[in-house]
Each structure stands twice: as C-alpha cells, then as structure tokens.
C-alpha cells in the first residue's frame, strides 16, 4: 500500500504528459482531418478517389505499426525522428484519417435537399459548405469525434513502447524499481479511467442530445 501511495505522484506526472500528448495530437489531427475530410467534396473526381484510397489504407494499418514505421522504418531512409515527435506524428496521422472519416460521414448525412436548396438559392459551393452544410454537419460529428478522442487518450499508451514518457512508461519505470506490477498497472488503469470515463459520458450525452430534436 505504501508503494502505491509513493508512486502516485510519479504516475500523475506521467498522466500530465499523456494529456499533453493527447492535446497536441488532437490539435494536429483534427485540423488535418477536417482538411482531408473536406477534400472528399471537391469537384475533382481524381482528388476525391485518391483521398478516399489514402484514408482507407492508412486507417487499415494498426497504430502500433504506424509508430514503428515512422520511428524504426524511416531512419533506414535517412529520416531520423526522435521518439516524442515520431509518436506524435504517427498518432496525428491516425487521428487525421479517422477524423476525416467522421467529417465525411457527418457531411454525407446531411439531406441532399439542403445542397439543392443552397445551390438553387445561388450560393457558391464554398458558401454552401460554410453557411449551410458544415454547421449542420458539425453537430452530427461531435459524438463520434468525442469517441475518437477517448480512443486517442487510451492509445497514447503505445508511445511508451518506443520510450516516450507518459503514464504507461511512468508505470513501467515504477515497476522496475518496486516490482509491484499488479498494483502499479492497476493504479495506471484507474488514472486512465478517470480521464476517459468523463469523455465517454460526454459523448453519450452529445449523442442523446442529437437524437432529441
């Protein structure tokens, strides 16, 4: 029990890093994802097809492999990226393609009548997106997006495998010192739970509000 109490501050330091990584990835990934998601609605078929293909392919790769590829694979080509940026880059890529899917799904769920009405009212495609479609689509994107954020916080644990300091790594280091694997990993799990559970609840409430109107 003493071991547990002594380790909590160190674990919480790791948790802080976890949240920081997740925030950085969320920022990069969301912006990238919105851009890529909107590319699905440009008027050029070749661009739409390429974007769909790239998104589908990158989404099919496990995040762990993305991280390993960027951190271990690229140096063989001469591109050496340190642990923290490599992990953030891989996760931002993951976040971007999954966000792109959420954006695409949200916009496609808007009734075609909205598009027709906007165009017949004389709006340009950009105006249509900006003032009519996107505002409506954003509401529908929120529940799956919150779900993505929850998964992201959990997946930051993968960065520990290449040595990035965050909650899982803090737990591993503590266990190397104390050998109390069960308690420490359980404590780490509890901290992850405390961060993720409110997010899950938020997503469920957003989902409920969506279906109410």
């Amino acid at each position, binding site marked *: 029990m003493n071991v547990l109490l002594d380790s909590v501050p160190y674990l919480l330091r790791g948790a802080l890093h976890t949240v920081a990584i997740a925030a950085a990835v969320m920022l990069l990934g969301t912006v990238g994802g919105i851009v890529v998601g909107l590319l699905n609605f440009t008027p050029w078929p070749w661009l739409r097809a390429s974007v769909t293909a790239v998104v589908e392919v990158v989404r099919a790769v*496990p995040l762990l492999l993305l991280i390993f590829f960027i951190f*271990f694979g690229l140096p063989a080509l001469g591109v050496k990226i340190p642990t923290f940026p490599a992990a953030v880059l891989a996760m931002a890529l993951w976040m971007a393609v999954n966000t792109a899917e959420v954006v695409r799904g949200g916009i496609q769920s808007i009734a075609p009548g909205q598009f027709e009405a906007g165009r017949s009212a004389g709006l340009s495609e950009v105006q249509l997106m900006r003032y009519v479609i996107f505002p409506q689509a954003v509401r529908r994107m929120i529940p799956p997006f919150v779900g993505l954020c929850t998964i992201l916080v959990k997946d930051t644990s993968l960065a520990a495998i290449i040595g990035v300091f965050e909650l899982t790594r803090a737990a591993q280091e503590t266990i190397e010192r104390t050998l109390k694997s069960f308690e420490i990993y359980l404590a780490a799990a509890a901290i992850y739970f405390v961060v993720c559970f409110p997010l899950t609840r938020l997503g469920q409430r957003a989902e409920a509000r969506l279906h109410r109107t």
Partner: protein
Amino acid sequence: MTPAGAGFSWSAIARGLPYLLEGAGLTIMISAVAMVVAAVLGLALAALSQAPGRLARRLVAAYVEIFRNTPLLIQIFIVYFGLPQLGLKLSPFLSGLSALVFYAAAYNTEIFRAGLEAVPRGQLEAARSLGLSAPATLRWITVPQALRISFPALGNNLVSLVKNSSLVSTIGMVELMFVANDISFNNFRTFEIYGTTAVIYVLLVLGLTRLLRAAERRLLRAA
C-alpha cells in the same frame, strides 16, 4: 547481404515474406478465436444485463465501462505482468488472448445490448401470446434477430480486433507484428519489413471489410 541503409532491398522482403505470412495467419487465427469467445461472452453479459434487478445491470455496466475506458495495452500488461504476482502465471499466448477477449467482449456487450433492445416489442408479445416460454422466445425469436441487427457493429469490432491484436506482440505473443519486429531487428531492413507488414495488414483489413459488407447485404436480403 547488403549493409543497412544501402538502398531498397527486395530480397529482404522476399526472404521475410514467408515468415510474415505465417504471422498473418496467426493474427487471423487469434482474432477469430478471440472474437468467437468475446461474442459468446458479450451475448451472455448483454442477456444478463436485461435480467430483473439492478445488481446484474450495474455489474455488467461496470465491466463494460472499466474495459472500454482503460487502454488495451495496460490490460494486457496487467494479465501478463500483474497476475503472476497474485499467483496466476499465464503464457504470452493465453495472456494476450484473454486480454483481447475481455476487451472485445466489453464492446460486444454494448453492441448486443443495443441489438436486443432493437428487436421490436411486437415480436416478444407475439411469441408470448403463442405460448412460447421466456427461454424459447430468447432462443428462437429475440437472439436471432438481435444477431442480425448487431452484425455490422460486430463486424467493425472484429476489424478493430485484428488491428488491436498487434499489441500482444509487446508481451512476446507471436503474430504478424511480433514476426515483423523479429525479422527487422535481425536484418535491419526496417523500412522494407515494416512497409511489407503494413501492406499485409491493409490487405487483411480491406479484405475482411469487403467480406463483412457482402455478408451484411446477404443478411439484409434474408430478412
């Protein structure tokens, strides 16, 4: 043998491919077994949560929330590194498999719960008025329809499971990711090997997705 960093090596891919494909086979097998067990567990828990009384519902809800809001990696570590401390020492294979099962089952429970609730009330009423007992109604009316309704979400969970199975490589369980690590750390052709591994995962996932969509369409037609 070319020194590391001396250009792209197709021969490294050719030499590693048989092992990678073996790993892919293991990944498929592990995912299939885990999904079947997790589906049974999920269905049982979903049915349990519909039982009268608050305790059953709360216990199942607690299980679902705990396993969905903690990282799979930590769950794997708890089973493989933590349980031996309590006296339960499992092999990497059993540790990885059980962790995957409990993780996937948590999502399956939610999927089945939603599926069971989505079966129209009229079906249950009709069954009761025909004199079917509660277990018989479940067996012949409710569960088959719930399965059909849940199928797309279950399929998505299977695809996630295939990708998540890569995490068990961290505790030494042999599957595609483990083999990829093994080969590339031996011959340093990390780019070629990890690249090929990515291609294999993409083919696995895209192939599985296509199969699932086809199965969904056939299920819909049979309805």
